[in-house]
């Protein structure tokens, strides 16, 4: 394979466990990023390009990625049904639920039930149910990042909470965290490459997660990317990656602003709520000293109280559902920027080595070493993976924010509706009373 030949597809380092345990076989592996390993069931379904050229990949995930590429781009229908996917048929379903507290002499912690349903052959059984704690998710994420450094790994909710400031065992905190963990796992499961990662498999299926086991599962690409030599300076970053970096910076900034605004609104709403409660109480107190006006005044006090309750619901929703998602995206962006930086490093190394090799060739006709070609492959592989993941991330981001903001609008609408209903029923009551009074007057 000559350096510079276009490579195909967005799939890297897919290995079955059996392959990985034989690192010596790496030397014989072609430079193609696609795995040589074929999965027998899929062989018949091997797709080809329109002109009949067979494809060199055979992992089901990359096949379906190609398929979706050949389909209409950005199909809105697909988005609506499958907000995380890109139109692929789903064969791996995961859920995180059922939080439980575990108390031991050493520590207290929460575990969550992770349920899996799948038809994939990588899994021995069609269903699994295991219990995992946050540490386990953290382990998984690190493993995914390490073994698939060219891909964007979704973020986890924040690890550290200040004890004493936040109650780690409160229902709201646990619920918020659980939703974020569920989202994380779903995003991973929907990713065409990450979902086949053996660490994920272990996470979903192993009775006891032996985290030390992970070391042996490092992929070849992962290793090579990890060992990128530092000290190379990047000449020219391709425009699209520049654009990505700029976009991420600005987007992150906007998200930060929105977070601050949302928090400020919550603060102001809380103060408003305090004053509103006192306000309602004055009406009640006044009602006590009136006769005819007692019911109307009590009525107003009641409406104010209802509005207070509705406002509390709104604020709770915003702090539990809205803010965490914003923060999650900020974390997501941070990890994406890291991936971009790594890509830069890989490209820099390639350019550096290439330059050195070219110079040497000019001097003493030494041919360009294979390592340099390998570097080029790495770069192109990385770029391709990143581009595909970027597209996917943009689609998901659009869906997520559409959902998030629509949710915010809905919650506000619900608040006003509740309040309006209370006041309307009061008016009916008071107007009835008015007609009662009038008729008793004329009688």
């Amino acid at each position, binding site marked *: 394979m000559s350096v510079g030949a276009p490579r195909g597809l967005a799939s890297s380092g897919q290995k079955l466990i059996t392959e990985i345990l034989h690192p010596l076989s790496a030397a014989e592996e072609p430079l193609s990023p696609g795995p040589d390993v074929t999965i027998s069931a899929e062989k018949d379904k091997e797709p080809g390009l329109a002109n009949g050229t067979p494809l060199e990949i055979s992992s089901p995930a990359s096949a379906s990625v190609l398929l979706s590429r050949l389909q209409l781009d950005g199909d809105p229908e697909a988005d609506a049904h499958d907000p995380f996917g890109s139109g692929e048929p789903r064969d791996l379903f995961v859920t995180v639920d059922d939080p439980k507290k575990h108390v031991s002499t050493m520590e207290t912690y929460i575990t969550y039930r992770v349920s899996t349903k799948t038809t994939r052959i990588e899994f021995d059984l069609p269903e699994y149910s295991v219990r995992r704690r946050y540490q386990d998710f953290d382990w998984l994420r690190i493993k995914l990042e390490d073994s698939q450094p060219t891909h964007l790994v979704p973020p986890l909710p924040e690890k550290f909470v200040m004890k004493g400031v936040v109650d780690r065992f409160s229902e709201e905190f646990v619920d918020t965290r659980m939703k974020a963990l569920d989202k994380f796992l779903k995003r991973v499961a929907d990713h065409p490459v990450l979902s086949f990662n053996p660490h994920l498999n272990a996470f979903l299926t192993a009775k006891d997660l032996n985290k030390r086991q992970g070391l042996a599962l490092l992929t070849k690409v992962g290793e090579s990317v990890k060992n990128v030599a530092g000290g190379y300076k990047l000449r020219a970053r391709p425009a699209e990656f520049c654009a990505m970096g700029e976009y991420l910076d600005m987007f992150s900034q*906007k998200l930060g*602003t929105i977070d601050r605004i949302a928090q400020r609104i919550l603060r102001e709403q809380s103060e408003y709520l305090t004053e509103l409660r006192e*306000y309602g109480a004055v009406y009640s107190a006044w009602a006590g000293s009136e006769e005819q006006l007692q019911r109307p005044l009590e009525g107003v006090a009641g409406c104010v109280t209802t509005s207070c309750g509705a406002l509390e619901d709104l604020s709770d929703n915003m702090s539990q559902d809205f803010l965490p998602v914003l923060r999650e995206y900020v974390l997501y962006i941070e990890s994406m920027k890291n991936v971009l930086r790594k890509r830069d490093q890989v490209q820099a190394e390639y350019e550096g080595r290439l330059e050195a090799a070219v110079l040497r060739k000019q001097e003493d006709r030494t041919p360009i070493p294979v390592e340099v070609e390998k570097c080029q492959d790495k770069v192109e592989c990385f770029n391709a993976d990143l581009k595909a993941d970027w597209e996917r991330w943009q689609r998901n981001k659009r869906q997520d924010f559409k959902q998030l903001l629509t949710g915010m609008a809905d919650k506000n609408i619900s608040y006003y509706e509740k309040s309006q209903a209370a006041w309307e029923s009061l008016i009916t009551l008071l107007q009835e009373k008015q007609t009662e009074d009038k008729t008793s007057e004329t009688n």
Partner: protein
Amino acid sequence: MAEDVKEESVTSNDESDLVASDGSLNNKMLTEGSCLLRRMEICVAEAEKRSGKNAVSMQETYTVYLVETRPMDTIAEGRNPPPDSLWRRYSEFELLRNYLIVTYPYIVVPPLPEKRAEFVWHKLSADNMDPDFVERRRIGLENFLLRVASHPVLSNNEMLYHFLSKEHGWKEMLYETGFQAKADSRLRALSATFRVRSPHKRLVEIKHYSDGLQSHTSQLLRARTRVADRLYAVYKVHGNYGRVFSEWSAIEKEMGDGLQSAGHHMDAYAASVDDILEEEEHYADQLKEYLSYAEAVRAVCRKHELSQFELEMASQDLISKKQQREELATGIVRTFSLKGMTNKLFGQEAPEQREAKLSLLEELIAEGEETVKEKTAECNEHAEKAWADIIHFKDQKDKDLQEALINYAFMQITMCKKGIQVWNNAKECFLKM
């Protein structure tokens, strides 16, 4: 209270036979219970700024209000004559009100709109010259005139009529009545409250009620101010969403339009709070009216206590004089007295002196009995009339405040509807993202 509806107009300009001894109009066509408002359309139409030199020759700016009146019968006949009008300052309204308070001590005199802006939520101006304040004051002054002119007793007052019709010289006429001398000193009134022995039970209850009314309405007004401040903040912060959505839309491709439009709706949301709170000021004004009314009710109760106190003093005086007479007549000293002591020490007086003293005492006692009779009648009359007017006030208060609460509920519903509309608009934009 049955009111005869008489569509008479006051035609006579000769004031001398118009006025009865208690200051009420003595027009033969007038009967007890008809009121000025039936005969005359009254409104406070406009407000204007004026500049002039005040009493101490300093330049001042003040606001005058146009009081327009039209006789009802001409309107009924279908003619539409231009109204008679004159300009009055707030201080002149105050003067009129003080006159009415002194002249009718047993009537709950309707209050004026506040002298200075109070219970102000921070964005609202506390400036008396602020156009919104002036407008609300205009409405309050009109309300005052309408209430006075529809009151069965107050509407008959001659000074009221002159206030409405005689631009110049009205003040002088008012001062000539000498009402200011009749105004009670607050100290006297206050001491009477503490020293009165048998106050009118029902009026004492009313006084406690008015204290409660005052306390509750002022608490409510304060709480409302705080709520308004907070609500304002909540709405305005949402305006920041408008800005950030706009900035964000610039870096997005497909999401850009939806975000941009949604941002505009957030701006609209933030702006909507100004109208909402301005509307609520009218509700606050209604509460303020009854806050002042509570003061007026208490004034009536206090006046009665003063009357009662004076009656008790007069009775006490009469009793002691009668005792003196008895002592003088019988020579028996019942109670300790200086006279008795000196008698013991220096011997009793000569019979002629005693006779003189006795006859003087008899005169004084006769006078005293008259006084007590008058004061008792006055007190009872005062109590009766006060009670009647207070019942009238209570009914009016119940109706007015119920109306006010219903209007407040409508305001809240409007606010909710606006909120729903804006967020629905924003939601549509988000769905198009």
